């Protein structure tokens, strides 16, 4: 029943998994369950190395329920219910698709699947079912309902796993199924068009939701949805450069989210606060953590020197190459808006005045929190500077799914015939600017006044009371809601829709339950009536 095959694609994703799990092993956490984590790890290996659909499905389901039990240690009932309904639903659509594929091709093994003789209607049905599965796992709208709550309410260590690895299984399955199994020529282009726009819409909406968020982990969860939205958009282009861009962004996002979630987890660990409105001003307290966070958000925002830029660059060039101007504009819009929440993350936690009088008493961050962060930072810096170290691996994957490899011109250069950049030059230039600015600030610092405590606002006439919140970072982005479109995005939520579905089923259940509480006489009557009706139908 279990059939495995080592592939380049599987290797890449499994490599990411191993790095994430190993680095997370160092992080202290009281909700650690060896059994469940090993089950999860095994299921991921099962997904990435499967050579037939059943093995894939088994891995998928084990992943689903082992994560459920991990989340269940901290999340509330409603979140759990959302998680399980969506994930089991997604798994069942996957099973439905697998069964459809079996009905069409008569096999489960990847290499034996041949869609050349399958009617196009059936292929469309299979595609839609599979896409539903992937959308649920990656949190594409409107199936993102479970994502944010689950990410924010699961324990800090597991949020990182969810965002860094588990959301990527959707990406993996997309690449596996649409690039390798149902190859491009049988796919319906209108569907891909819809997928592309869904992805980009997801990223825009999630970005604004993230900007408006007060809770650090929820912000990161929305950000995760937005980033996976890019990946899905770029994957639906189905070109060699776009696949490369998607893979690149997957790797980058994995480490960015690993870094950021653990960074926030460290802050939550020492301060027991997880809202921006109760954090702030921690820069001098935790400078190393701050620097690592900056590395993370620079990559997240896709700003030049670090890894995020390389992947964004590839995404833009891939879109340009395929002449998807409108999509590109949308991606750029969402990507630019992402700066705002990135900044909110920095400002809300580290800058401004501390809101909490007890800030001084916060303990030191245990060193073990730095292991995954430093790993992430090193990889992000490396990938931004020397993109060439990973391009051969991507090219191998491209080759294995039958695409032309992207041009490879030395370890510093990334890009195609269309456009390229030199990572070494970029980092050199930015390094220079950074040093100059640093020198400027060092000179400036000698002339600045040191405050006595957090309520000492030297340029202001009055002294505030101790309970006044001097930290405004948490309110950032609030003014955006004055803009009509953004207000609409922020005020709408899929909550009402899913709530209505849930109520509907509850009411139906109430009605059907009445059937099972009849008295004995009425039962007899129903039986005789049923018999009579059937008899009448038959005799007639």
């Amino acid at each position, binding site marked *: 029943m279990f059939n495995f095959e080592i592939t380049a694609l599987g290797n890449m994703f499994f490599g990411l998994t191993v790095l994430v799990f190993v680095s997370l092993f160092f992080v202290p956490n009281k909700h650690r369950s060896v059994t469940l984590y090993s089950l999860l790890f095994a299921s991921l290996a099962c997904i990435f190395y499967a050579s037939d659909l059943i093995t894939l499905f088994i891995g998928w389901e084990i992943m689903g329920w082992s994560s*459920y039990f991990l989340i269940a240690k901290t999340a509330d*009932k409603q979140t759990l*219910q959302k998680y399980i309904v969506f994930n089991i639903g997604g798994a069942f659509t996957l099973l439905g698709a697998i069964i459809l594929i079996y009905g069409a091709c008569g096999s489960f093994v990847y290499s034996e699947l041949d869609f050349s003789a399958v009617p196009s209607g059936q292929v469309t049905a299979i595609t839609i079912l599979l896409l539903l599965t992937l959308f649920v796992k990656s949190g594409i709208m409107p199936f993102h309902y479970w994502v944010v709550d689950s990410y924010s309410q699961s324990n800090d260590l597991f949020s990182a796993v969810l965002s860094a690895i588990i959301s990527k299984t959707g990406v993996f399955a997309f690449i596996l199924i649409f690039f390798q199994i149902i190859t491009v020529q049988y796919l319906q282009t209108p569907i891909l068009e819809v997928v592309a726009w869904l992805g980009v819409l997801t990223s825009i909406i999630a970005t604004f939701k993230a900007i408006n968020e007060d809770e650090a982990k929820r912000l990161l969860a929305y950000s995760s949805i937005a980033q996976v939205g890019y990946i899905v958009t770029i994957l639906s282009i189905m070109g060699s450069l776009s696949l490369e861009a998607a893979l690149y962004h997957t790797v980058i996002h994995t480490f960015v989210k690993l870094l950021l979630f653990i960074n926030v987890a460290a802050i939550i660990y020492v301060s027991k606060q997880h809202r921006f409105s109760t954090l702030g001003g921690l820069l001098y307290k935790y400078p190393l953590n701050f620097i690592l966070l900056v590395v993370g958000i620079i990559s997240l925002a896709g700003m030049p020197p670090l890894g995020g830029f390389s992947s964004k660059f590839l995404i833009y060039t891939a879109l340009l190459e395929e002449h998807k101007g409108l999509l590109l504009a949308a991606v750029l819009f969402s990507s630019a808006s992402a700066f705002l929440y990135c900044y909110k993350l920095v400002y809300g936690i580290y800058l401004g005045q501390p809101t909490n009088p007890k800030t001084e008493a916060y303990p030191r961050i245990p060193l073990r929190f730095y292991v995954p962060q430093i790993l992430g930072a090193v990889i992000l810096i490396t990938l931004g500077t020397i993109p060439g170290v990973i391009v051969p691996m991507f090219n191998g994957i491209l080759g294995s799914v039958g695409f032309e490899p992207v041009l490879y011109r030395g370890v510093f250069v990334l890009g195609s015939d269309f456009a390229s950049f030199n990572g070494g030059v970029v980092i050199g230039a930015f390094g220079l600017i950074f040093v100059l600015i640093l020198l400027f600030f060092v000179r400036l610092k000698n002339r600045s006044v040191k405050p006595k405590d957090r309520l000492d606002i030297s340029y202001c006439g009055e002294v505030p009371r101790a309970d006044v919140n001097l930290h405004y970072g948490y309110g950032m982005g609030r003014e955006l809601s004055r803009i009509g479109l953004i207000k609409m995005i922020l005020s709408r939520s899929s909550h009402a829709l899913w709530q209505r579905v849930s109520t509907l089923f509850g009411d139906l259940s109430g009605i059907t339950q009445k059937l099972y509480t009849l008295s004995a006489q009425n039962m007899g009557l129903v039986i005789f009536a049923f018999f009579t009706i059937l008899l009448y139908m038959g005799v007639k």
Partner: protein
Amino acid sequence: MSLVYFIAIPILASFLTPFYKNYLRFVSVLVNILLAGFAAFFYSRLPLNEFISLDSPLSIIFILDYVSFFFVSLFIGVMLFFSLYSIKEKNNTAVFVVTNIFTSGALGLILSADIFNIYIFFEIASISAYILTGLNRDKVAYSGAIKYMIVGAVASIFLLLGIMLMYLNLGYLTLSSIGAGFHTMDKGIQYLVLLSLFIGFGIKTEILPLNFWVADIYQATPTKIAALFSAVLSKAYLFVFFHILYTLKVDAPALLFLTAIGLLSFAVAELSALRSKDVKRIFAYSTLGQLGVLFLALSSANVVVVSGALFLILVHSISKLMLFFSLDLVEKKMHSTRVEAFAGFRSAFLFTIFAIGFLSLLGIPPFAGFIAKLTILKGFASMGAYGIVGAILAISLVEATYFFRLLSANQRSKKTAEIKVPLLQKIMLSLLALAILYLGLFPQGLLDFCTDAAQTLIQGVIHV
């Protein structure tokens, strides 16, 4: 060696109760071990048939082919498990007196290939079930038992009507000769016979318009006994019904009707469980739902689907035994089976058992329920019935909702009581859980046997 021993020995054990009143529980275990031995003895001699008392087709015939062997060994296994599980209950002689006869009734239903004899065993199994329902000896139990008896009597009347009509027309009672002559009967009578059988067995196999009694009965029944109803009784009736149907070679529209009824039954039962506030009722609804799936799968007349259904029967029996027995432990401690009570216990072992049971019932890998569901769906896919595949999956999602609601209720609520599971119970329940895991990981041997059995079932009885 005679097949009648399967029936005679448990009855003998019950008749002789006065001689070992206080040791009946040990005798029950011995009887079940003996029966298991008989089953093992007959395994290498399959298929075989035996005439009772008179060596001619005029007599009663017992048939042990692949499919009836499957059910016989399943039921003996369940009853052996039950008797071992409750071996420490000293003051509960009545249970063992009745369960022994219950065993022979269920085994007789499976083995017999003579419709009047089937009716007798139908009654034996039913009456023992009525008594078992009333074993709690309180108001709820008695009213449940009486309700069960009334509904059961209606079922018996209809079954008897069908049998009478067949005998009137064909003059024989053996299944094989009835199967051969069924289509020579008047069309209207054919229809009436099938309808009577459907009503008679439909009530007992707990299928949609006829199953409204089930939830109340399960709630009135002692929890451990409810496991037997779910694992043995309904399955026995289900088998006999389809055994007769396939022997009569009913035409496609009738089977399609049963498929539709099964699907509807599945949907309604799972929906009802969604809002239920009592765990025992939820398990009852889940049983109804699974029976709906079985009904719809068994009526497909496709070897793959039917073999999947047989696999599902086994898996469902194991899971339900596990769940009801664990619930019994919870009930003993919390004195209630309400969801709130279920949420309040603390026991990592029981929680794991519940989780495994739920996951297996939902058909989630790597547990055995998945193999069953996959086989059924594969079969439907090869028939091209994608609508059914979709419906099964969609309804399973509803099932998942309430099972996981229970799990999260237990995980996220304030715990009020710690349950210490006795060693014997712990071992027995772990054995069941391991069996589910084992069958989920290495299903091939059993699947092959199920395929043989499915072929035999679809063929119908063709002996003599």
